[in-house]
């Protein structure tokens, strides 16, 4: 048993040392945006939704839209929009999580990055689980236990993430519609 304890103590010391040397941190939204749209110019916007828009988003997302303030990033390359990204902040259990949900120009999910996770890290969704959302669009099938498989032991994270993705896809649709109407009025 002394041998077992020695081996494990050594492992602890090595791990602690590695940790001190390699201080891995959570990806910031700026880092994530740079990784998702590497050669694009990115413009930050803050959109204030109207009540009607919030209701419509709630209907499309099949969930509540709690805030009218939306943080959006538009990526352009050569004068052409190549994608958009949204920050969605929500509560998982009692603490917040923020996701940067990046979309392709056609409105499908390009990638999801966790920019803040204040619950214990064991409840955080792993990158491979988040990759299930790649290329997903807002359909009825975009639900846990349908197109999205659950996370063992992190049910609330899975539910909160799925709700966030549906919300962002709905916001994107509603804003795209508003922009079309504005374009039509301008013409």
């Amino acid at each position, binding site marked *: *048993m002394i041998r077992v304890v020695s081996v494990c103590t050594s*492992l602890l010391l090595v791990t602690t040392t590695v940790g001190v040397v390699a201080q891995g941190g959570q990806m910031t939204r700026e880092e994530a945006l740079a990784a998702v749209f590497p050669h694009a110019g990115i413009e*930050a916007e*803050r959109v*204030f939704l*109207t009540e009607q828009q919030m209701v419509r988003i709630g209907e499309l997302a099949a969930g509540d839209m709690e805030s009218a303030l939306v943080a959006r990033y538009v990526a352009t390359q050569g004068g052409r929009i190549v994608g958009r990204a949204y920050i969605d902040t929500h509560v998982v259990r*009692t*603490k917040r*999580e923020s996701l940067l949900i990046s979309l392709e120009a056609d409105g499908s999910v390009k990638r999801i990055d966790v920019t803040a996770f204040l619950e214990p890290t064991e409840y955080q969704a792993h990158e491979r689980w988040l990759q299930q959302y790649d290329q997903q669009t807002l359909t009825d099938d975009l639900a846990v*236990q349908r197109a999205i498989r659950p996370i063992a032991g992190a049910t609330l994270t899975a539910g909160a993430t799925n709700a966030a993705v549906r919300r962002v896809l709905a916001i994107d649709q509603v804003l795209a519609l508003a922009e079309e109407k504005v374009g039509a009025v301008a013409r």
Partner: protein
Amino acid sequence: MTTKTHQDHTWWQMIPALALCALATSATAQTQIRDVTERTSVEAEADTAPAVCGAAETEQQPSDIEELQRRLDLLAAEVERLRSGEEVQPVSVDDARRLGLAPSAASTYGQARGVSIAGYGEMLFENYADENEGGAATGQTTKADFLRAIIYAGYRFNDKFLFNSEIEIEHADEIYVEFAYLDYQATDNIGVRGGMLLAPMGLVNEFHEPTVFLGAERPVTEQRIIPSTWRENGAGIYGAFDRVSFRAYVMNGFDGLEFSSKGVRGGRQKGNKAKATSMAFTGRVDVTPTPGVFVGASLYTGDSGQGQVMVDGAEYGVRTTIFDLHGAAQVRGLDVRGLFARAHLDDAAQLNQLLGKGVGERMQGAYIQVGYDLLSQTNSAGVALTPYVRYEQVDTQDRVPEGLSRSLSTDNTYLTAGIELKPISNIVVKVDHAWVSNDAETGVNQFNVSMGYAF
């Protein structure tokens, strides 16, 4: 990266102008603000701010409008950042000075930290058959038990260190600490953990909230062979690399003097002045080939003698080794789980000589369970209705030391069928019936209803 407010939502651009109106015209202007605020952006997009506030006034103060717009934009950005919970830049010495604090005292301004509260609970109604399978009266009373009421409390000191705990009240009057540990997240992939830890064994022990497992009661294998909720004091490492996750701890061992013919469950020390003469290693590895599916193995090995098993002047360690193989798949409403666990005790003959309890030398159990959420492929708004069935065999005297005879009542087969309803993912009601049989014909069937919650 550049920043701007959303140019296509020009009602937003009206706010500064309206604010100027408000300053100038008091009550009348306030009504205007409310009216405009209620308008849709599409309606507002057809208008312009000067039309509301007056072209002359707007032309007189264009720089004020731009400045107000800039300030509102900054405030919106600040609010959104604060809401996000993202790490902000560390407080500089100059900033700390502006806050009137030393840099360390001011560091709280630059950290996402704080208390986390969560919990779960379950109530179980058990109705036993009047007669066992051999026809003898059981005399067992129907029970309604508030099995567990739990509060999780955690505190994140910074992005590296956090504390997490589970305080449990069992049967409404027994208080336990189920876990309480400090985590050091060394890198994104590896962390160190110390305190009272859950043994990383099986499918249920670490994930034992009632909303997570099927069945009003936990599988018997994960009560007797893997004695959930199994927690001891220790330390170790945890982590994950791509598809592989692991945990490896050193903990105090069992107290072997509390083992019985029903398994190792009585040997748990639960962190209460635990005897630590005999330590143990425990760990697990899980592989997730695709989300929703994982397979893995767990191991526990260590002495349980705690320096107390003395027979004929010799001390016996009572090495206890438990391993399990497990797997689970949750795909499109289908939930399949299986587990095989085996425990082996050295020095079982000497232990029985001391205790006379018929402790098995080898114990094992296995189950397979299938459930299907009937509403999973419908737009049920999160409601889940899942019939399930579980087949299980458990033998706590699979092998006994020479000279000891096996009891026929320790080798049981359980067939459980039931249904669970989750009106929302945090609340569950389960109803099931378990048919229990063994060679001694002492199995007692039971009907269960449970209610659980987790938040």
